């Protein structure tokens, strides 16, 4: 008989006798969850990426202050990249004796390549989606221009020398960025009309973009080709460059997805390891018999490996199928929150789910299985002759490698992978040590306890190795659940705090000193809350420690971008909200020759405390020393600055003021009043940007919530499975105790105490470890500050005790009513 046939037959018999139930369940849970998460993450990522591309109106954009060279367009055509371009500039519009500084945007016919424009003719609440900009001789404008210039749809609007007919009102523009032109009231025209406006003259300040879509490989090749050709004013944009706020939210969400996958795989892996161990122990006799009947060690391993491959393959297939349904269900549940078109899953994700199943099986199930190779045929004569355990290195090495591979896959950071694995190993050995000490030191005092407590605790202390391994398994599962829960909570809280309901949706810049108080009063008169008024002086960083800055900074870096243009410099007596001093000290006196610099810029410029910076302000130069480095929360939608000076430092220079405020939806007309009173003030409307951002965050929030429920459900199921897989010995022992006259209530009490103590200790350890991991995670991965959660400190050990205790109790309860004879016979 071929080995395959024999393996199939053995597998069938095991399956029929119920031996494989827990193992198969654990595998199915593992594969279902990792497939569902992989598919869900992949589709969500693609969808979000696509949405992010919508915000650029393309997959890749080159932003430039000079027109894009013809050769670049040619290269893009060679690479079959679809193209469009935009040209943006400011221009003063004059109609009906009113003036308005508008942001003009001339777009080519294929604009937008990604996403869509939303426009309306009358009913603004029900706009139409279009994939095309205005036709020639047409102008599409933002609604507020109508009231500011007393115009109506169908009227003529003159841009430069070209009269254009207003045909539609723009309510949504996908690539409306945060720069000056796009925040001014928008007028969109066709690129073909640009020349006849005669607005663009040599020396005009113009912002060009070239937009491209195409397949990823060609885009990457194009990017590589173009990078060395960029001059300092040109940049390549993708989602991460263009939207740092969105980028950080998205990458945090991606990391959370990755973390959830690792967590579910880890939890399931533990269940599989425990289930296989039980499987192995229950197969010692069968294996001894096979060996007795002449089966070689290698054949035994082949037989079991074949069975596991067949089992793993079928469970993984089933898991993939269930995982597919689970993520479909997830998308169905989220359909109101997610964009209407969801990217379809790549077959790779399905394959990933399957591969994960097999890898977990090999990593976690192989070590206990290999133990079977060592079963001695003598066991047939002496039942208590257990096989020698496989080498510890092999057992833990395999499982660790699997976890390491997964961590590496998700974080793409080798150093971090080693940190996690090293930290995990260190934590596990410390934990094992603590538990061992706890067991050894407490066992002497058991004598004074009542019989239930004594038996419960003694049963833990008699098998320290088993107790430690069970506590480690429960601890890891609990840690995984706590991590999933805490990270999700803090991530959501952090997002919520960044963007409260009344997050500022307008910026006002260029407020002259004389206008400051009247401006503030006008806002207050309308009960509109504004942030601080920051004085702003325009200046440029030119030297660091006497060396020209352009010789120091590297191309395409934050430092390069910050030093190639005039910066808004401000002064303040105290650090603004959301700013934290991370190095050095804030100044005590307001007239020191010092400056505070933002952390990322400091890193990019490679400067530290005490370095001398030279600024050019107007025609004068000023040298100051860095007194402190600040971390800045850029996601607050409040004014933020790279450089802050003590107030007296900038007094000598011309200053304007800058503020931000929240304007409720019904008060848009107030903007016109503001412009009327303060014609010199520039108002920037960031509401659209804010709404896009809020929408994405709410979608991510919902997705992350579901992932958490998934991880928790997997955790609870597996915890049950894990408890069940340790029950054999306990059921046997309790049957024997009942034979000798122990009452069921006593047995139940012993079990309850034993499991509750196991759970309680696991909960305590899990808490300590998760706090440690969380503080590392937040610093390294999410860039957030970690705070201790007192509720967690209180609840985790209790929940651990309660849950594991209950699982154990329920597990053993069903055999309590069976006569002891039948249990002793069956085991």
């Amino acid at each position: 008989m071929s080995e395959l046939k024999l393996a199939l037959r053995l597998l069938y018999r095991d399956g029929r006798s119920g031996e494989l139930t827990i193992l198969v369940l654990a595998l199915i849970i593992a594969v279902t969850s990792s497939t569902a998460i992989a598919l869900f993450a992949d589709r969500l990522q693609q969808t979000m990426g696509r949405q992010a591309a919508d915000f650029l109106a393309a997959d890749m954009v080159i932003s430039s202050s000079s027109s894009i060279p013809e050769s670049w367009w040619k290269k893009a055509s060679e690479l079959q990249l679809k193209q469009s371009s935009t040209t943006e500039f400011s221009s003063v519009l004059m109609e009906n004796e009113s003036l308005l500084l508008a942001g003009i945007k001339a777009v080519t016919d294929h604009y937008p390549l990604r996403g869509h424009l939303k426009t309306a003719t009358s009913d603004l609440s029900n706009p139409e989606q279009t994939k095309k900009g205005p036709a020639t001789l047409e102008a599409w404008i933002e609604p507020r221009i109508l009231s500011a210039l007393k115009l109506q749809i169908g009227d003529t609007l003159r841009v430069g020398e070209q009269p254009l007919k207003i045909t539609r009102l723009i309510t949504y523009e996908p690539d409306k960025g945060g720069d000056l032109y796009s925040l001014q009231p928008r007028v969109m025209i066709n690129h073909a009309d640009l020349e006849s406006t005669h607005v663009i003259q040599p020396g005009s300040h113009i912002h060009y973009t070239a937009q491209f879509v195409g397949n990823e490989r060609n885009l990457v090749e194009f990017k590589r080709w173009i990078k060395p050709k960029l001059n300092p004013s040109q940049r390549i944009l993708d989602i991460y460059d263009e939207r740092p706020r969105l980028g950080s939210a998205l990458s945090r969400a991606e990391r959370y997805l990755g973390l959830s996958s690792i967590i579910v795989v880890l939890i399931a892996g533990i269940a599989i390891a425990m289930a296989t161990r039980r499987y192995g122990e229950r197969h010692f006799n069968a294996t001894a018999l096979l060996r007795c009947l002449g089966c070689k060690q290698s054949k035994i391993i082949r037989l079991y490996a074949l069975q596991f491959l067949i089992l793993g393959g079928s469970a993984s297939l089933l898991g993939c199928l269930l995982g597919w349904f689970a993520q479909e269900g997830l998308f169905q549940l989220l359909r109101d929150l997610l964009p209407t078109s969801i990217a379809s899953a790549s077959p790779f994700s399905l394959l990933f789910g399957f591969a994960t199943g097999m890898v977990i099986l090999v990593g976690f199930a192989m070590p206990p299985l290999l133990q079977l190779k060592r079963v001695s045929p003598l066991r047939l004569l002496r039942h208590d002759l257990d096989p020698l355990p496989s080498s510890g290195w092999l057992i833990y090495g395999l499982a660790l490698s699997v976890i390491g591979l997964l961590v590496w896959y998700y974080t793409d950071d080798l150093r971090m992978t080693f940190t996690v694995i090293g930290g995990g190993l260190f934590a596990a050995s410390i934990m094992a040590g603590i538990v061992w000490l706890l067991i050894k030191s407490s066992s002497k005092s058991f004598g004074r306890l009542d019989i239930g407590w004594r038996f419960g605790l003694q049963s833990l202390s008699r098998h320290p190795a088993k107790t430690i391994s069970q506590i480690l398994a429960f601890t890891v599962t609990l840690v995984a659940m706590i991590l999933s829960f805490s990270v999700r909570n803090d991530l959501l809280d952090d997002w919520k705090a960044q963007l409260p309901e009344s997050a500022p949706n307008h910026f006002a810049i260029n407020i002259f000193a004389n206008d400051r108080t009247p401006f503030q009063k006008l806002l207050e008169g309308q009960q509109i809350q504004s942030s601080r008024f920051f004085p702003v002086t325009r200046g440029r960083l030119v030297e660091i420690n006497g060396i020209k800055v352009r010789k120091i900074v590297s191309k395409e870096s934050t430092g390069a971008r910050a030093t190639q243009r005039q910066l808004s410099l401000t002064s303040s007596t105290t650090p603004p909200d959301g700013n934290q001093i991370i190095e050095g000290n804030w100044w005590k006196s307001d007239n020191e020759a010092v400056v505070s610099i933002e952390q990322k810029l400091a890193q990019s410029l490679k400067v530290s405390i005490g370095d001398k910076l030279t600024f050019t302000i107007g025609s004068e130069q000023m040298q100051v020393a860095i007194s402190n480095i600040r971390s800045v929360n850029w996601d607050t939608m409040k004014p933020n600055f790279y450089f802050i000076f003590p107030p007296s430092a900038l007094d000598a220079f011309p200053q304007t003021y800058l503020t931000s405020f929240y304007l409720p939806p019904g008060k848009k007309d107030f903007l016109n009043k503001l412009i009327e009173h303060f014609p010199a003030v520039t108002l920037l409307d960031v509401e659209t940007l804010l709404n896009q951002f809020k929408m994405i965050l709410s979608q991510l929030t919902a997705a992350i919530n579901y992932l958490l429920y998934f991880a928790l459900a997997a955790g609870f199921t597996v915890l049950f499975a894990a408890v069940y897989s340790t029950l054999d010995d306990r059921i046997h022992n309790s049957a024997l105790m009942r034979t000798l006259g122990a009452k069921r209530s006593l047995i139940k009490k012993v079990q309850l105490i034993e499991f509750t103590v196991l759970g309680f200790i696991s909960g305590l350890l899990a808490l300590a470890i998760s706090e440690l991991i969380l503080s590392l995670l937040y610093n390294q991965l999410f860039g957030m500050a970690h705070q201790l959660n007192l509720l967690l400190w209180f609840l985790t050990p209790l929940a651990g005790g309660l849950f594991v205790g209950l699982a154990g109790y329920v597990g053993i309860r069903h055999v309590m009513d069976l006569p002891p004879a039948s249990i002793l016979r069956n085991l």
Partner: protein
Amino acid sequence: MHSSPDKQSNAPIIEAINLGKKVSTSEGTLEILSSVDLIINPADTLAIMGTSGSGKSTLLSLLAALDEPTTGSVSLFGQPLAQLDEDGRAELRNQSIGFVFQSFQLLPGLTALENVMLPLELCGDKNAADAAQALLERVGLSNRTHHTPRQLSGGEQQRVALARAFVTEPGILFADEPTGNLDSKTGEQIVELLFELNREKQTTLVLVTHDEPLAALCQRTIRLEAGTVVCQS
């Protein structure tokens, strides 16, 4: 120490009437035991014999209140078992019954001493350790008291099991193939010890075996075939 309720009286210790046991399997109901009537008097020694699968162990577990019959009834020390719930039967087992199993059935995590102490601890005996120690000395294991079953040979494990069975001074002792897992020499020593202790403690003994010489040591023998009693002597 605990003594059985009726150790000194002449009333039968076990009275089994029309005892039967059926189990359901995937191929239908299987009758393991049918219509067994049996009376066992104080200080009786009874061997239950029969081939493998004849129902010996099933009969023993029914008589010892380890299992419930499908038909018929068992009274132990005049107490009908059907009137007791599982906890009541556990209490009865603890106070009046001792067990010796073929596979020893010692708790693997406990030392020899702790295994012997266990039945006394279950009924709250404060002197459990002393009594267990004395009995372990009696079975010749005074120097092995702190060894776990894994560190003991089969013969030694069965001695511990004997000590555990006698430590509560039960009214009746059930032994299921007590020498089945032992070599003949060790088996003989165990049998010798079992009968010695039995005489000393005046315990009623019910022994399941297919070993003719062992059965011959008992006063009475019943023989089972396919679940029914075919011969009593």
